[in-house]
């Protein structure tokens, strides 16, 4: 009787059992949603498409993020899916476009993939430029870089690049996958292809101040 008095009106109307059931259903649905989300956030899921397995995954196998001395790895979603909830949801919704192109077979052969490589790479470069290479910085934090432990080239270039408010992706392109056709002024080959940007355009001064 006492319990009934404490219950709010809506709870009285639907009854205690239904309320409990609804609560459990909520937990199950939310858990299931997250489980499904995480299931699509695994390397094994990514390479279940041969588009990924035969092109980008093979290239990635030769790089330090796949295999290295200590076995600490960065798998596909570590770089390609944001960790924060909001951006992650947005990226996952955008990924439905990729499912559509899987059905269309847009890049289902290495030839087709290589023809699209420039555009696909540019999409990722733009995304990482926009979020200040957040996925790199999840592990590689500028603030904790010990320049004395870095090689002479890295310890010289990193502080300079940070001063120019450059972000990781400005210089570190093609570290996990092969680069698309790029014009490097080295002959007729690849003439007319886009040039590799090294983040030449410095950010607006106001924007740089905000970041600090």
């Amino acid at each position: 009787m006492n319990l009934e008095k404490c219950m709010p009106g809506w709870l009285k109307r639907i009854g205690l059992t239904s309320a409990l059931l609804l609560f459990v259903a909520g937990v199950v649905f939310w858990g299931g949603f997250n489980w499904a989300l995480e299931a699509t956030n695994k390397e094994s899921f990514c390479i279940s498409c041969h588009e990924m397995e035969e092109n980008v995954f093979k290239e990635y196998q030769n790089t330090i993020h796949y295999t290295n001395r200590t076995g600490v790895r960065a798998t596909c979603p570590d770089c390609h899916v944001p960790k924060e909830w909001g951006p992650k949801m947005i990226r996952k919704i955008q990924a439905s476009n990729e499912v559509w192109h899987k059905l269309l077979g847009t890049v289902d052969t290495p030839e087709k993939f290589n023809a699209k490589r420039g555009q696909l790479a540019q999409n990722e470069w733009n995304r990482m430029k926009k979020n200040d290479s957040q996925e790199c910085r999840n592990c590689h934090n500028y603030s904790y870089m010990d320049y004395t432990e870095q090689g002479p080239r890295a310890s010289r270039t990193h502080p300079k690049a940070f001063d120019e408010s450059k972000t990781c992706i400005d210089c570190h392109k093609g570290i996990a996958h092969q680069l698309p056709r790029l014009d490097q002024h080295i002959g007729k080959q690849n003439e007319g292809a886009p040039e590799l940007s090294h983040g030449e355009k410095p950010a607006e001064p106001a924007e740089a101040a905000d970041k600090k």
Partner: protein
Amino acid sequence: MRLIPALALAAAVLFTGTGVVSAQEKLLSERGDVSIDQTSKVDMFRPEKDKENIPRNFQKQPPLIPHSVKGYVVTQNFNKCMDCHSKERAEETGATKVAKSHYLDREDKKLQTISPRRYFCMQCHVPQFDAKPLVENNYKPAAKN
């Protein structure tokens, strides 16, 4: 007695002879005494740490690469070396600029861009590893003119 010095000499010859033979046996290849179809037990050589430019050993020697080139790819699409060493990029990156000789074709005619026969940098310029020389090298460069 003449026999004793002769014997001693024979023994000495025999000794030094076997000494030479055993020294030759000890000289193994860099991958050790393992036949080609087996995996070498010798540890992989590690690239040397990045350092300053390495002086040339003789005139016109292709300069050695004083830094690690691990993961550097030279493909039809992209030449990682030229990303820093090309004449357009060298000033910004502080890398050694590609030499003028690399902008000549085989008839010594000047080209606007790097000669295609120079595209594969690591055919001549090689990175350095911590492999110890198997035999002593007493090469000395000719005096500079």
